[in-house]
């Protein structure tokens, strides 16, 4: 998968406290991997998200995005459904790491109140700056740690570990 440091997409503004049960509900936990994307946000207020989302769309959220379970099905489902980036005021630890480890970029940036559903934004993962396309307004997020960028550039943790262990 090719690494893109600039992500341009349409916003889904989800608000605060989106937990992993909403992102990937318990009843779907035994689903085979090729079906994960069908359950993206199936437990949320947008149960038909998987059918509406378009490739490259960006989730914007408030505090504590991804709180709860360690289920990696949650970020995988979002990524496979087409989500290109998740921006939140804050993330729960395990979700944040899972997303990075599977190559789904996340950015800490407080912009929940500044964008609406359907607006287009462009995010620069290196400078952590988000531009609202219509107004040209810019919002600064938290710069990603170099190790995080390395993981994203490698396409996820598995590729990074292969490099570490010198498996070619």
């Amino acid at each position, binding site marked *: 998968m090719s690494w893109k440091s600039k992500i341009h997409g349409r916003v889904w503004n989800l608000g605060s406290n989106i937990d992993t049960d909403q992102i990937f509900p318990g009843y779907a936990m035994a689903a085979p991997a090729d079906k994960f994307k069908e359950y993206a946000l199936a437990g949320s207020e947008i149960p038909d998200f998987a059918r509406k989302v378009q490739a490259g769309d960006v989730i914007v959220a408030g505090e504590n995005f991804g709180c709860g379970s360690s*289920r*990696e099905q949650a970020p995988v489902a979002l990524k496979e459904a087409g989500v290109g980036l998740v921006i939140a005021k804050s993330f729960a630890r395990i979700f944040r*790491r899972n997303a990075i480890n599977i190559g789904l970029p996340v950015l800490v940036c407080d912009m929940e109140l500044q964008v609406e559903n359907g607006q287009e934004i462009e995010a620069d993962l290196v400078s952590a700056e988000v531009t609202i396309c219509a107004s040209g307004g810019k919002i600064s997020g938290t710069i990603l740690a170099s190790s995080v960028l390395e993981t994203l550039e490698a396409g996820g*943790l598995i590729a990074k*570990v292969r490099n570490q262990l010198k498996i070619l």
Partner: protein
Amino acid sequence: MNQIERYLAIAAGKEEVHAGDDITVNVDLAIAHDITGPMAVEQFKKIGIGHVFDAKKVVFVLDHIMPAATVEAKVLHNVLREFSLEYGVKLYDKGEGVIHQVIAEKHRLKRGSILIGADSHTCTAGAYGALAIPVGATELAATMATGTIDLEVPEVCEIRIDGKLQPGVYAKDVILHLIGYFGTAGFTDQGVIYTGSLMDQLTMDDKMTISNMGIEMGTMISYFADPDQPVGTVKEVYPFQAEAIPASVACPPNPGIVVRASDLSSTKISQVVIGSCTNGRLSDMLVAAEVLKGRKVAAGVTLLIIPASVDIAQQMEDQGLNRIFREAGGMITSPGCGPCFGAHMGLLAAGDVAVSTTNRNFPGRMGHRDGKVYLASPRLAAESAIAGTIVTPGMVVPLGGLADELEK
């Protein structure tokens, strides 16, 4: 350094570590279950290494959908069975119980050991002083290959609780009270050390209940202090008085919405769940049995009793608790996760209301998105089962057991 930093330093082979340092630590045990394990196995195979770092230090437990409720769930079991045969790692596949209880019973780590688990409630092991860090499947796969994990040293806070709990107030109330106070993101990426004179009165079961729900405050590490060594320097100390902690209930839609049980207006219920890695141990079952003995579960209420392990189930049988539960109208299921995460064995429909001793009550957690879950102690849950509404401990069955009498 504080106690968490001291043990992280040892695991990283360093003299000293400080908050914010990036370190690589050696892992003493890596664990996963039937939901996270198969993904970890798939990712591990992509790494392309022919063996796990140490076959004795990787353990899988079938607990989440055990026995398999669907064909898909059985496929996941088979993935782990095949992997365990091929790579020589231990698989618990006989319904031994919930992973955190099985690990405590069969693979109890010594203080300061590093436990990496692909389950958010891995933090349960902080009760006995393990540094227990929950991860996802890919990170677990990396650890299975390398025997290490890359971490940042967390900032650490101390929660100091002194005094004695009031009658009708239990370890579950302590942790619900703390989650209510600090919020569901109160300690994101941080470590928490529990100290104070209350700790001397808590049993290991109690400590596991408290440590289990650390993740509900966002913690990276929940850890009960070693009373024989200094706590060390922490970012902040939060003092609490045990007597001021009330019987508490976490209301939907998240574990951070905590109220005094006595402040809840009358709420009709249709299900009670007593069990899980939070409150499925023998002491929890004894409390519930004392309440339910000779009484009946209210009409319209399903009571599910779910032991956290087969050893606990055996003790329940030996001590006559199962007869008490069955005569009261309760169902005893096999050990495991059951309906806690909404996969099987006791799901809610829209409009259902459950009192549960489990750890989460997010929308849809136990079934339909409009089924509501209130989290509480086994005592409160058992009394509520009899009343058919959410009650405060003591309202259905007087609190004054012998232990309570001696307190007065």
